[in-house]
């Protein structure tokens, strides 16, 4: 194309790629029943949880790793992974001032200041470092409203009844290979509980930071909104650059009772591997929301730009009558990334509705697949689904694949699906430039325009960040 080819502008070096030097408690590599017991022991868990883990582990042993995703990756050696690594600090500090300054500094560098003066004022943050929760801000304020927001490990200690009632009820341990693995060795994650009728007063956010190489990250998140409750939750993550791959197999469960609503947003910026596809995170996540109650609503909004291999299908089970499931996604792949992502909307109850808006942007030599399932069961009379999957191709080496499955057994329902592809054309870029808009900004405008429907769903603070992130990731790919 032009001489100031966008390809040259490339690769803003991944600026989160540093490693924090800190003492870490690690166990030896490998996975066995002893390791599972060791993990449970280190966390001092009640017996029901140990049994939960053991049952999942035994089931995992009987399963075969799935290989149907349109992905190619060298086999993962499950024995060559460390299943527990925690920064060596004592119990969670009562006050942030007691937290190891190096950790605070880490989060500062990441743009997530935790100290009292600098924290984001309307977002409560649970900072997780190598799968261990370091600090949670605003706990007292939230407690005034009856909202519980803490690390999963803390929740096990302080609200074991809630954990026992809801854990594994949305994603059963035997649901799939990675869910079984996670259920056996999960380290930490976030727990959110919003009691009846409470509208959570602030955004809740968990920020995951992977620090150790060789470790697998197995977060477990559980969010429960009781009748009439609502919450907006944001998940963010980064990781340093290593030249081996790391496995991230998380499980997220959401439960919404009658008239409750949960909004779950993710802005993913894992390290993607270098231009040659060396290194990078393997991101295999099972995320499922269950609209258990009538008129409940669960929305998934995600902006995926990182990770070498992404395999995730946030889904909604629409059980309660008149419940609503939504999925808004922007997935960007560049260089040699591979993404196979999408959503499952399973309509069980009557008059349930689902909306899917998926925008894929493929650049470089990457491969971006959308795989969706809309299933209308026999009890879902009056169900409605609308899906829109659009792909933007940048350059002619990247691929965009779309596989929307529709399965319907209920005539009194309507499913509509549309998809289209487009590109950033020279003509369009030139037009913007001829009106005085710089090249980079023009690309950014067009991509943002393409993603507008999805960005509008993100909580305000993060919509702007998502815009910038996309622009960053795409530099150098047009031309």
């Amino acid at each position, binding site marked *: 194309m032009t001489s100031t080819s966008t390809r040259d502008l490339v690769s803003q070096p991944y600026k989160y790629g540093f490693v924090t030097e800190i003492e870490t408690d690690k166990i030896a590599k490998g996975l066995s029943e002893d390791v599972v017991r060791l993990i449970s022991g280190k966390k001092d868990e009640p017996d029901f949880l140990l049994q939960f883990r053991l049952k999942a582990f035994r089931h995992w042993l009987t399963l075969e790793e799935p290989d149907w995703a349109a992905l190619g990756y060298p086999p993962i050696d499950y024995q060559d992974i460390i299943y527990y690594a925690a920064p060596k600090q004592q119990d969670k500090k009562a006050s942030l001032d007691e937290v190891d300054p190096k950790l605070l500094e880490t989060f500062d560098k990441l743009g997530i200041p935790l100290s009292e003066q600098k924290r984001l004022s309307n977002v409560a943050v649970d900072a997780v470092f190598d799968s261990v929760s370091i600090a949670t801000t605003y706990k007292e304020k939230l407690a005034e409203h009856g909202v519980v927001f803490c690390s999963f490990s803390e929740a096990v200690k302080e609200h074991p009844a809630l954990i026992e009632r809801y854990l594994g009820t949305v994603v059963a341990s035997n649901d799939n290979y990675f869910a079984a693995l996670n259920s056996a060795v999960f380290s930490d994650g976030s727990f959110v509980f919003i009691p009846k009728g409470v509208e959570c007063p602030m955004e809740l956010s968990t920020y995951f930071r992977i620090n150790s190489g060789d470790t697998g990250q197995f977060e477990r998140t559980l969010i429960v909104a009781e009748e009439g409750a609502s919450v907006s939750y944001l998940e963010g993550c980064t990781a340093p650059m290593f030249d081996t791959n790391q496995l991230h197999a998380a499980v997220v469960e959401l439960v919404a009772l009658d008239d409750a609503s949960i909004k779950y947003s993710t802005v993913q910026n894992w390290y993607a591997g270098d231009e040659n596809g060396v290194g990078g995170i393997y991101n295999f996540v099972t995320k499922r929301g269950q609209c258990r109650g009538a008129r409940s609503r669960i929305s998934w909004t995600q902006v995926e730009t990182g990770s070498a291999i992404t395999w995730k299908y946030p889904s909604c089970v629409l059980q309660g009558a008149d419940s609503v499931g939504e999925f808004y996604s922007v997935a960007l792949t560049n260089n040699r990334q591979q993404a196979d992502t999408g959503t499952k909307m399973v309509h069980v109850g009557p008059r349930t509705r689902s909306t899917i808006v998926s925008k894929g942007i493929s650049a470089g030599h990457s491969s971006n697949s959308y795989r969706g399932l809309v299933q209308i069961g026999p009890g879902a009379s009056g169900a409605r689904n609308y899906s829109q999957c659009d792909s933007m191709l940048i350059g002619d080496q990247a691929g*965009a694949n779309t596989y929307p499955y*529709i399965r319907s057994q209920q005539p009194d329902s309507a*499913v509509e699906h549309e998809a289209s592809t487009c590109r950033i054309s020279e003509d369009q870029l030139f037009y913007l430039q001829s009106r005085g808009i710089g090249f980079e900004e023009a690309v950014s405008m067009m991509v943002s325009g393409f993603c507008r429907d999805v960005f509008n769903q993100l909580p305000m603070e993060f919509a702007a960040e998502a815009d910038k992130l996309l622009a960053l990731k795409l530099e150098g790919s047009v031309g």
Partner: protein
Amino acid sequence: MVNTVLAPVQKRGQANLEKLGLPTRRQEAWRLTDLKRLKAMASLPHVAGADQSSWPSVDQGVTRLVIGTDSDPLEGIQLPEGVSPLSEAELEQALGHTLDRCGCAEVWPVELNHAHSRRVLALRVRGSVAPLEIVLAAGDGLIATRVLLLLEEKAELDLLQVIPAERDNAAAPLAHSHVIEVHLGQEARLRHGLLASASGDTSLLAHLAVEQEPRSSYDFVSVCRGWRFGRLEPQVLQVDGQATTRLNGLAMTGGDEQFATHTGVCFQGPEGSLDQLQKAVAADRSHSIFNGAIQVPRAAQRTDASQLSRNLLLSSQARVDAKPELEIVADDVRCAHGATVSQLQQDQLFYLRSRGVAADEAAALLLKGYCCDVVDRLPSVAPSWLASSAVKDPARPL
């Protein structure tokens, strides 16, 4: 003559079938298939077809060829000018070429056909010729038939294939395995219709492989109904893009029937176009499956492809599985697809009823409108068949 060319094909086919074994659920392309019925079909005795009594007489100006019987389809037939059979040497060279190019030479239904076909009807078409009708005869058992068509540059043909398989429920099971390869030379035009209307215990495996040279045009309309078990797989390859492909299909199922349509279109060059409309109607406890794959690799810039899958569910026990699939690498393309699943529209029904049209007649009118959209696109040679078969009135109990 034909036997010397076919014999090795049959042997390889039989060997490969054994090696492959029956397809299993783990294979994506067979995940939803009723494998029991597939197996039952494959184990039927191999017979030759007969029964031409209920067929309508041939239209004026149309040449009818009957395959699947014991006799040579060309015996005693005056082929229209421009249509000639391939010589043995030509056949040897051409047979299987298109299947290979389309990547389906070794799929199970094709190997089944290789193993059992005793004849190939192989024709070359030169220039613009009179319409042809190829009728696949029926019989109590499994009949395997195979066709090869080569349309030279600028040739033009209207072809209607009919598989009349309506029989009463008491009759013995009937199965048909059919493979047709078509090569369209540059600027050749083929309007191809397939009318497969059945009833009773009937199974169908029909595989089409079509290779299009640049600037050729392929217009395919399929209407299938009443098969207890059926799978139709049209695969089209535009060898260097720049061609026009139109695929229209209507699949109607009722009772406990299962019918699957698996289409594949691949553009191996730029500026090709595809306009695809697939409609399905599923009644009673039947199961309708559609899988529409479209591949637009890097070399296929400026491809213009669109696919619409419309599915009508008439009862709460019927089931529809629709999976459009797009794989796109070229970026300067226009590729759109859409799918809908619904029932007959309430407000349209009410409008008709408010004008005095009884509820079931209103539903029949709407259903007919829905189906005729595709049925009316069958090549002009169809009317006499439509007048006689159940397809004409799609509102009749499926």
